[in-house]
């Protein structure tokens, strides 16, 4: 079935009741009243506190962890080290390189060594300081070049390259021969900290002798369950994970959910008391995963007609201390290296390299953000060399239906990038724009395009599940493992259900994910929450609707296809006064023993993929985005102000335009942070600026005017109503638009981010010499 056409084919309606309309979020009321419960709000006063003892060395062998003195501190209950772990001491996501508690070696400043359990914060902190660790220091690698040197000592067994990727499409040598212009540059992108307002938190409650419940911050309750069970050496059914409302996540809580929950669970189970584990702000910034830093050597060629002929890209990704998500991150960069353009010949090679620094992890844009900064800088440079307008050049090469991606995936529908680009050009009056100067201030306009595969990579099967129950009073209970993190995916699911079963939105109650009762929806990451999870919701709603229609037809004494479900009532389409309420209908379903519940399941269509060449049907579908930004640069101070952004996105189908606008506006702010401001400073592997005061993120003063986002709707035929994911694609085109605008204003092009006032000031001075 093609889920995009449910409205016409199955619901037999000409227009949507709720999909595509702006509604007030059903979860927002408790949030404005101060009644919404986040993890820390569940923790009673006096709960045992858990803290982590961390390495102060970037690279060293552990000789001894001495905690005798710590145990003497009043209030200290227990210290837990690796030897106390009843199950497996291994928490690596992709590779088995990451001990939960280290007992042999430390790999970065902040590596966990032990857990302290105490009756209060003060005794716990005192105990952490009292624990003495003796090391044998090893030489540390604080740059990828140091880690790649031929005589480098390995950080992990197997050497300092964690993983490699490659794509070979067409004949690159031939492509460059056909090119009349060529550009080759090296780009570098930094760490970025997520800086969500709620730090990582978990509250674990042991039950009896062999069960534990953990309430926590996370993005994948079932991944959390798997890791907690593994560390405890228990079966999955002994561990119950509940996702509390989560105060921002942006990827990191997918990495940190298992860790923070396991820290609380292990302490609770070993001590036999409820345990609370809440990260301090500086701990969260200094020691937990960041956006992976990367370096791109990028060579591209185009012919005199302005057609891209070849790209050759070499990606060096810095993992930091552990591989974590780097194999998937690196692959995303490899697959998206060309940008949303048709390139007949491509050779892309990537490697992920360990260093002795805080490790990288998931973050909105997942590799693609940094990649498109490089790709889109190349596009502007090529356009300049050919002497053609940057948007005109992009349009000559833009992906369209019938063309193939870098991975040779044929795009047969849902390709809206050309329309996005044309419409932002028009909205921003691109062709008439003249960079201007007033006093020391210059202004310029820049463009950025982006695309992002929505689904698992490399043809790996992707699926999602949920459940829906019609209660006897006519309300519905909906359960999904897709988490509410601020983005509102579960509310999108509720709108999809509401549309299909014809119930008002407030009839549909979305439960928090709870692994003991919620079907596994797979993780809330990769912008898949609405597209995959929401299509499972559609499946559940369609199945339940069938049962509702069958019984309603008999009750209304009409044919099934004459029954309309709307506003919480079932009625005969031709005679609306012949009606029954959903509560009457529900009671009848129960009385007749016809299932009032359904299990929704959605699996993405089968894909194929060749790991040798990197070619195949890589992703189910792509979301496309384009942005134009206008910036003002003060040549005296080097300060950049983003004045206005015109964003556009091909979203497939907007389930909720207000929520999409919210995603885009938040992404503009985070993108400005990444492009201009956010700068994590490390010295000898130590993060020097772990607070809001010194790791500067955009404030209310830094958000520019944002034009009403242009939503292009090219439905994806295999998702509910045609919707595609938006959370990550929203940020990707913003960064290159800003960087290209700075070049347009100043003539200076940056290959390294962030473009802080200091760096720009220095560059301006150099350009004048």
């Amino acid at each position, binding site marked *: 079935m093609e889920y995009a056409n449910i409205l016409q084919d199955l619901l037999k309606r000409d227009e949507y009741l709720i999909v595509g309309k702006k509604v007030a979020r059903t979860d927002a009321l408790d949030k404005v009243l101060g009644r919404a419960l986040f993890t820390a709000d569940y923790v009673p006063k006096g709960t045992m506190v858990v803290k982590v003892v961390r390495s102060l060395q970037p690279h060293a062998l552990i000789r001894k962890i001495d905690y005798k003195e710590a145990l003497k501190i009043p209030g200290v209950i227990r210290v837990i080290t690796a030897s106390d772990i009843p199950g497996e001491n291994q928490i690596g996501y992709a590779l088995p390189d990451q001990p939960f508690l280290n007992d042999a070696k430390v790999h970065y400043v902040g590596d966990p060594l032990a857990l302290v359990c105490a009756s209060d914060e003060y005794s716990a902190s005192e105990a952490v300081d009292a624990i003495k660790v003796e090391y044998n220091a090893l030489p540390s690698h604080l740059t990828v070049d140091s880690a790649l040197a031929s005589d480098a000592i390995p950080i992990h067994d197997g050497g300092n390259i964690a993983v490699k990727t490659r794509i070979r499409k067409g004949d690159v040598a031939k492509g460059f021969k056909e090119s009349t212009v060529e550009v080759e540059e090296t780009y570098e992108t930094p760490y970025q900290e997520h800086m969500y*307002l709620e730090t990582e938190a978990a509250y674990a409650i042991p039950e009896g002798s062999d069960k534990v419940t953990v309430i926590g911050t996370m993005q994948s309750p079932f991944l959390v369950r798997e890791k907690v069970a593994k560390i405890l050496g228990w079966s999955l059914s002994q561990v119950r994970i509940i996702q509390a409302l989560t105060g921002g996540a942006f990827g990191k809580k997918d990495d940190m959910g298992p860790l923070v929950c396991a820290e609380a669970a292990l302490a609770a189970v070993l001590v036999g008391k409820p345990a609370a584990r809440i990260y301090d*702000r500086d701990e969260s910034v200094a020691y937990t995963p960041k956006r992976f830093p990367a370096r791109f050597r990028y060579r591209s060629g185009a012919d005199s007609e302005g057609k891209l002929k070849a790209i050759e890209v070499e990606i060096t990704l810095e993992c930091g201390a552990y591989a974590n998500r780097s194999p998937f991150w690196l692959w995303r960069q490899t697959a998206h290296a060309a940008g949303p353009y048709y390139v007949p010949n491509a050779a892309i090679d990537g490697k992920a390299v360990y260093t002795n620094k805080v490790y990288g992890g998931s973050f909105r844009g997942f590799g693609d953000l940094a990649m498109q900064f490089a790709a889109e800088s190349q596009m502007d440079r090529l356009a300049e060399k050919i002497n053609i307008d940057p948007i005109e050049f992009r349009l000559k090469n833009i992906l369209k239906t019938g063309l193939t991606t870098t991975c040779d995936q044929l795009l047969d529908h849902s390709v809206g990038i050309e329309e996005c680009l044309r419409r932002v050009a028009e909205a921003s009056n691109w062709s008439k724009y003249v960079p201007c100067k007033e006093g020391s201030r210059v202004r310029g306009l820049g463009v950025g395009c982006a695309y992002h595969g929505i689904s698992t990579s490399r043809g790996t099967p992707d699926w999602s599940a949920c459940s829906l129950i019609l209660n006897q009073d006519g309300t519905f209970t909906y359960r999904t493992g897709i988490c509410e993190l601020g983005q509102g995916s579960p509310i999108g699911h509720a709108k999809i259900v509401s549309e299909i079963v014809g119930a008002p939105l407030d009839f549909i109650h979305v439960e928090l994910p709870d692994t003991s009762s919620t079907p596994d929806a797979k993780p809330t990451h990769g912008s898949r929450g609405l597209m995959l999870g929401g299509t499972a919701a559609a499946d559940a709603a369609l199945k339940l609707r069938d049962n509702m229609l069958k019984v309603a037809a008999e009750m209304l004494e009409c044919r099934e296809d004459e029954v309309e479900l709307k506003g919480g009532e079932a009625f005969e389409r031709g005679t609306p006064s012949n009606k029954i309420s959903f509560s009457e209908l529900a009671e009848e379903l129960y009385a007749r023993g016809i299932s009032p519940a359904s299990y929704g399941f959605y699996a993405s269509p089968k894909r194929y993929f060749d790991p040798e060449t990197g070619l195949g049907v890589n992703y189910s579908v792509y979301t496309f985005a384009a942005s134009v930004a206008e910036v003002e640069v003060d040549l005296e101070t080097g300060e950049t102000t983003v004045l206005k952004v015109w964003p556009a996105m091909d979203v497939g189908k907007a389930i909720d335009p207000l929520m999409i606008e919210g995603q885009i506006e938040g992404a503009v702010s985070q993108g400005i942070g990444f492009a201009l401001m956010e700068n994590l400073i490390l010295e000898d592997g130590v993060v020097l600026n772990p*607070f*809001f005061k010194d790791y500067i993120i955009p404030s209310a003063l830094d958000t520019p005017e944002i034009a009403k986002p242009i939503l292009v709707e090219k439905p994806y035929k295999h998702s509910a109503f045609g919707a595609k994911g938006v959370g990550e694609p929203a940020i990707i085109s913003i960064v290159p638009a800003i960087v290209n605008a700075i070049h347009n204003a100043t003539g200076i092009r940056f290959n390294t981010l962030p473009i802080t006032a200091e760096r720009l000031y220095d560059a301006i001075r150099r350009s004048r010499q």
Partner: protein
Amino acid sequence: MKVELTINRRKGIFEVEPNELLINLLREKIRLTGTKYGCGIGMCGACTVLLDGEPVLACLTLAVDADGGEVETIEGVAREGKLDDLQEAFLEEGAVQCGYCTPGFIMTAKALLNENPSPSEDEIRGYLKGNYCRCTGYVNIIKAVQRAAEKRKRIGKQEI
């Protein structure tokens, strides 16, 4: 030590430690968990409450320093089951995403509108600059404050 505080219009006497922070008194002792802990050192604005009508950071304010004062937290903003104009405007403008910063923003915005019933956009941005939000990009929060201010003006005029 004993302190006498009026919290959300209810007077009470509380036993506190000399070094006890207002945020801990509110969250742990009184279980008013709407006030959020974001950084603990007064840099993010998530713990903003009103003390005698002025916005203060509950993570930097000692409970004893609030003695005799009137504290208003997010839980006290709606009156008799009716949402405040700001709360309503936050819902209508989509100013809430994850919601963790929301209580702090509403309290700060409330103080702003008390001081300045018709702030310009720049004044709103300036007043809210100490409250961080990582989800919304501030756009809809600013719109919500404008909307609440306009609504109050409209209703005020009708009443005259």
